């Protein structure tokens, strides 16, 4: 039981880290540009597909991953230059609709290019082993690598945002856009950079999970909604909030699914508990969101509503 708990704990952290990579880009774009981007999830999906293609082209997952990063960066750049920058001054509704249109275009485009059937990518030989946990329990090395990569990214983001010049501009831009523009910072160039960078983070997440999940056209959407939940819980615009929110959502979701039915069995009949657990588990994160918002409408680390 303890080792099962530890195993699920690690799975929850790994899922949370993944959500963080997606939510970080989303929350930056939101907090700084006040821009709603429903198309962020499809960038994650495209990242996974590109990783599959590049891996089979080069024969190495490592190279595939490395090629995916600049490719999704370029995708973010292209989207920003062609569509997003025309929408910054528009109401949120316009942004939602235009990016919803992009979701339809890109999802369908992916189906045309790669087909609707799920794909998979070979895990790198070197990382395919497992790591002894407690007793006979082992944990896949690759999932530990995802956790480590995510934590390093979080650390890197923290350093960039709080200790570099561009991070300073970022924070300033988030609190007062027109003031920063008046001080001579090319705000539009800053936006382009943030967008492309956010897209690359999402693409990175997609490429990282490609070997452990099946790559399919619907994968971006489910994650997008969860990323929304993450940034709403964490507080829009706060990367720290996104990190806390992502871990919380990852853990609640994973632990709820595996231990919810077990806990329910203590108070219900086994069959009813199983059914109730299956129904309740996927709803847990939304209930969590509702509870947090009922107490703090701006989210855990949010300042503005």
């Amino acid at each position, binding site marked *: 039981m303890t080792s099962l708990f530890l195993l699920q704990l690690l799975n929850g952290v790994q899922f949370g880290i993944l959500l963080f990579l997606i939510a970080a880009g989303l929350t930056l774009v939101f907090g700084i540009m006040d821009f709603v981007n429903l198309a962020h999830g499809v960038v994650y999906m495209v990242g996974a597909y590109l990783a599959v293609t590049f891996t089979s082209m080069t024969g190495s997952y490592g190279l595939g991953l490395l090629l995916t990063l600049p490719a999704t960066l370029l995708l973010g750049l292209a989207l920003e230059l062609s569509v997003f920058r025309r929408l910054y001054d*528009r109401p949120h509704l316009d942004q939602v609709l*235009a990016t919803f249109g992009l979701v*339809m275009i890109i999802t369908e485009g992916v189906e045309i290019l790669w087909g609707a059937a799920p794909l998979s990518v070979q895990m790198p030989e070197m990382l395919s082993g497992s790591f002894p946990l407690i007793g006979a329990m082992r944990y896949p090395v690759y999932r530990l690598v995802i956790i480590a990569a995510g934590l390093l990214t979080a650390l890197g983001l923290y350093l960039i945002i709080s200790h570099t010049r561009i991070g300073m501009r970022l924070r300033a831009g988030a609190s007062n856009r027109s003031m920063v523009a008046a001080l001579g910072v090319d705000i539009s160039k800053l936006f382009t950079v943030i967008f492309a960078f956010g897209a690359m983070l999402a693409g990175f997440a997609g490429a990282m999970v490609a070997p452990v999940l099946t790559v399919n056209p619907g994968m971006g959407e489910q994650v997008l909604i969860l990323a929304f939940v993450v940034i709403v819980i964490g507080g829009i615009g706060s990367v720290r909030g996104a990190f806390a929110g992502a871990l919380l959502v990852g853990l609640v979701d994973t632990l709820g699914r595996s231990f919810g039915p077990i806990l329910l069995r203590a108070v219900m009949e086994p069959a009813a508990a199983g*059914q109730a657990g299956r129904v309740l588990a996927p709803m847990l994160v939304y209930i969590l969101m509702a509870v947090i918002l009922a107490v703090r409408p701006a989210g855990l680390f949010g300042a503005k509503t």
Partner: protein
Amino acid sequence: MTRLTPTRAWAATILFTAFAALPLIAGALDDSYLIVIATRILAYAIAALALDLILGYGGMVSFGHAAYLGIGAYAVAILSRAGITDLGAHLLAAILVAAVFALITGAISLRTRGIYFIMITLAFAQMGYFFFVSLSAYGGDDGVTLNARSTIFGQPLLENNTALYYTALALLIGLYLLAVAITRSRFGRVLTGTRENPIRMQAIGFSPFRYQLTAYVISGCMASIAGVMLANQASYVSPSFMDWHRSGELVVMVVFGGIGNLLGAIAGATIALLLEEWLAILTDHWPILFGLILVLVVLYSRDGLSGLFRRSKS
């Protein structure tokens, strides 16, 4: 804007007369599929009308209105399975459950503003989606096929496609008149005032929250009626009724028709569904074209298609 001006009354009369005459045209053309599409259009028009009531008049961008379609549809499926087949019972159950869901989720969502509201309504609808996905007694992901359509006074009147069509049309007209009455009432004016300036409304003694929540609940109940009709039309219910894409499409319909124009919402639903049908004839990959049109409309017309028409006229 909310007044039913003579022009608007004429437009409504013409639109509804055209809908009423459609079965005759379909009969003359011997095209029974036309009625099927038109019934779908009417059902979505009801949902778009419901959404426009809060989006256009209350400024609440709900991105989760498909949840109410799903609630209505599952009310039909679950009651039918239990042996209760009456349309009245189906509508009543749909409206009651929708009211409770809207009251709870609305009360939480309305604590927030703007973009938070969009995302929270989206997330709550997703919660409903997953609820029905994991409800294995009703087919889970695969959904359930209905054995028969709802009955009226114990009679299987709706098995006839034309009868179902006219039932949907009657509901749409009734709900349209209700929506017009709501927007013209004191309640509707307070709601519009809240959209414009909630703080001022509060200062003159209204509680914006209460008005917005009431409007949100009314809208959810109306949308659940659309779900009841949709389930009957398709004779099939699945969680995909609550997919967030469908919520998006509802917003698209309202925007296509011009926000805050109830008749426009009906026209928008018609345009969007006909566009889908037409694009689907051109290519299997119609979403790519639909998405492209959507992006272009947003980029180049600030008031949806109605804005395009207005501009081309002036």
